[in-house]
């Protein structure tokens, strides 16, 4: 009997020793968008082999788990952007530890004390805000503190069909596309393009769309030094500067310099089919467009593909609207082990930001922007300037997603002729201010 007890104790001790390290691992809940791709990258830890936002972020987290057996990250994916769920989770006291939040949405949660300021934690793991690009640091800083580890900056770009630009005579001697330097020049080049190619200069998603309109407006208000959010709780959009921008886009629409009635998917199809010269789209399609340009027989392969930041059309600041993705940390009571684990996770992503930049988004770190590896990625040399040009709305502006919808709706109504420009701007301003007044 005594022998049996000793044997049982020995077996139990052995089982405990052999037990998976995850039994003692610190659990972290991580919630993100970017989709799920378990079939292709569910177990991949070689990040260099991953492609796309989903593939790269899945592989990075897999690698983190593999490299850090004392921490286990439990990932939940949510439909983009996931803020309905996140708000519900905060309301029920069940928020994840780490969550992807756009820089433009950080203030919605930070202003309610729901996010942890990260300055001290990042400092403890050797990540300093000085290492961030200006665009990334400005976007992640609220009330003077960092509320999200920036992982990228993204913005809208001019994606250019170089074959059509050559046909239109809009290519410089050095082979670069000729871009306008004023609204008048833009309209003149668009007319020239239309005459020479028979196609519209722009391929835009104008149907079922709000974001594109809004980002266009913000960019060209920045370039006119318009401080439309001088008071973060009160916007001024019924201004001569805003009118100039809306009237410019209305002229583009009225004169047939843009595709019409296309939604986002339709605009992508149209650009890839060679139905227009410039698609206004984001950093996230650089990879797809580049792949098309390397595929024989495609419209972009014919004469090449180029991508540039928005041209400087006005005499004010050299700037364009930019946002970015961050890892934010929910404010809750934690053990020192949990906090340390979060620090490890953030440090890991800071150290692997180059891999994330292969998605097409711009890196959040100056060292990566200037690195040879980054510059060697397709087209990054022409868009790296966004790291300096990119500018978010003032950090204290809340409900930026909702504001985007209002601004986009009114701009769409004005540009497509459903509403008078002045009426649209007046309604835009009053609707946004009513929204902000009710926060």
């Amino acid at each position, binding site marked *: 009997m005594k022998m049996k007890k000793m044997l049982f104790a020995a077996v139990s001790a052995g089982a405990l020793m052999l037990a998976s390290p995850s039994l003692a691992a610190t659990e972290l809940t991580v919630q993100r*968008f970017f989709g799920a791709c378990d079939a292709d990258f569910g177990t991949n830890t070689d990040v260099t082999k991953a492609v796309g936002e989903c593939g790269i972020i899945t592989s990075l987290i897999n690698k983190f788990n593999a490299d850090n057996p004392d921490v286990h990250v439990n990932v939940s994916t*949510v439909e*983009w952007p996931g803020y309905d*769920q996140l*708000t*519900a989770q905060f309301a029920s006291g069940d928020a994840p530890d780490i969550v992807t939040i756009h820089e433009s949405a950080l203030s919605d949660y930070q202003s309610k004390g729901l996010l942890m300021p990260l300055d001290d934690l990042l400092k403890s793991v050797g990540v300093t805000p000085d290492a961030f690009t200006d665009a990334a640091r400005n976007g992640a800083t609220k009330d003077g503190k960092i509320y999200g580890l920036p992982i990228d900056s993204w913005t809208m770009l001019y994606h250019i069909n170089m074959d059509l630009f050559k046909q239109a005579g809009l290519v410089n001697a050095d082979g670069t596309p000729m871009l306008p330097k004023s609204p008048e020049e833009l309209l003149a080049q668009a007319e020239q393009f239309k005459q020479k190619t028979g196609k519209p200069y722009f391929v835009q998603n104008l149907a079922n769309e709000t974001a594109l309109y809004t980002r266009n407006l913000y960019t060209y208000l920045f370039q006119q030094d318009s401080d439309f959010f001088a008071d973060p709780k009160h916007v001024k959009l019924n201004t001569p500067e805003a009118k100039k921008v809306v009237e410019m886009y209305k002229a583009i629409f009225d004169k047939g310099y843009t595709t019409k009635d296309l939604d986002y*998917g339709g605009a992508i199809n149209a650009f*890839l089919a060679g139905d227009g010269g410039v698609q206004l789209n984001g950093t996230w399609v650089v990879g797809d467009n580049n792949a098309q340009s390397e595929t024989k027989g495609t419209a972009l392969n014919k004469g090449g593909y180029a991508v540039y930041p928005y041209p400087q059309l006005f005499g004010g600041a050299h700037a364009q609207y930019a946002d970015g993705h961050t890892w934010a940390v929910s404010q809750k009571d934690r053990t020192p082990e949990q906090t340390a684990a979060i620090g490890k996770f953030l440090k890991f992503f800071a150290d692997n930001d180059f891999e994330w930049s292969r998605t097409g988004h711009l890196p959040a770190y100056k060292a990566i922007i200037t690195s040879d590896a980054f510059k060697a990625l397709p087209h990054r040399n022409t868009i790296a300037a966004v790291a300096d040009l990119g500018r978010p709305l003032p950090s204290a502006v809340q409900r930026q997603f909702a504001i985007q919808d209002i601004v986009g709706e009114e701009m769409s109504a004005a540009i497509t002729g459903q509403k008078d420009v002045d009426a649209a701007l007046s309604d835009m301003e009053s609707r946004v201010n009513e929204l902000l007044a009710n926060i």
Partner: protein
Amino acid sequence: MRGPAISIRGRAFGDRVLLALVILLSIVMIAPVLWVIGLSLKENAELMANPNSVFHAPYTLKNYINTIGTSSVFAWVFNSIIVSGGLTLGTLILSSLAGYGFARLNFPGRNILFVIVLFGLAVPEQAVLVARHQIFSILKFHNTYHGLILPGLSASFGVFLMTQYFKAIPKELDEAALLDNASRFRIFWKVLLPLTVPAQATLGIFTFLGAWNDYLWPLISATKKEMYTLTVGMASTQTNFAQSEGIGFLMAQAVFAGAPILIVYLFFQKYIVTAVSGAAVR
């Protein structure tokens, strides 16, 4: 017993025109379904470059492999079956009992209570969403099956439907059973309930369909991955621009998510047609 088939030659001209019109309408109705299936069998990158590539090879099952390969997808299917099945069963039981009570029993305040129940039809879910979420937070009902099932059990339409159906059954059946000393429950269970099968099938399938497709409440109540229903889970796997960069995958998910509903409908369509047409099932 089915009658002999009648050939088109034996039909009047008007019948032929009607038949042609019905065939045309069927094609119009089925075309989007065929389009969805076609898109689901193409590579995302190919569709992104050219949506017309759906009309020619190559075709692929990769999108279905990716759908099924999502690690939690069968857990989500299971969750949806539990929630939809539980909600359907609960609704049928409660609506049948309430319908019988309103149709056959005389009790004080019956009419007022019935009107109050009908008021529920005028209140949209969105109006009570925040309050319900807060109550469920306090009760710790989020991320549970009962948290997903309970809200749907207050089925005003179900009570209304069953009440009307019970009212249409002749009272003589009740009286005959009462003469045989049957209890009220026995009358309900043995005499009247079997006669409401068409209504129950209709209510059942619409409740199941509504629960299976529900997105808003599960989105904010089932926020842990293991408790996602199929709708929320499927949406969580999509990238931001799925409608352009992942349209094939999106369509494969739509087919996968819709297949169980199609199977359920195939089993119960007889009852639905009967209920709608007002005839009895023999």
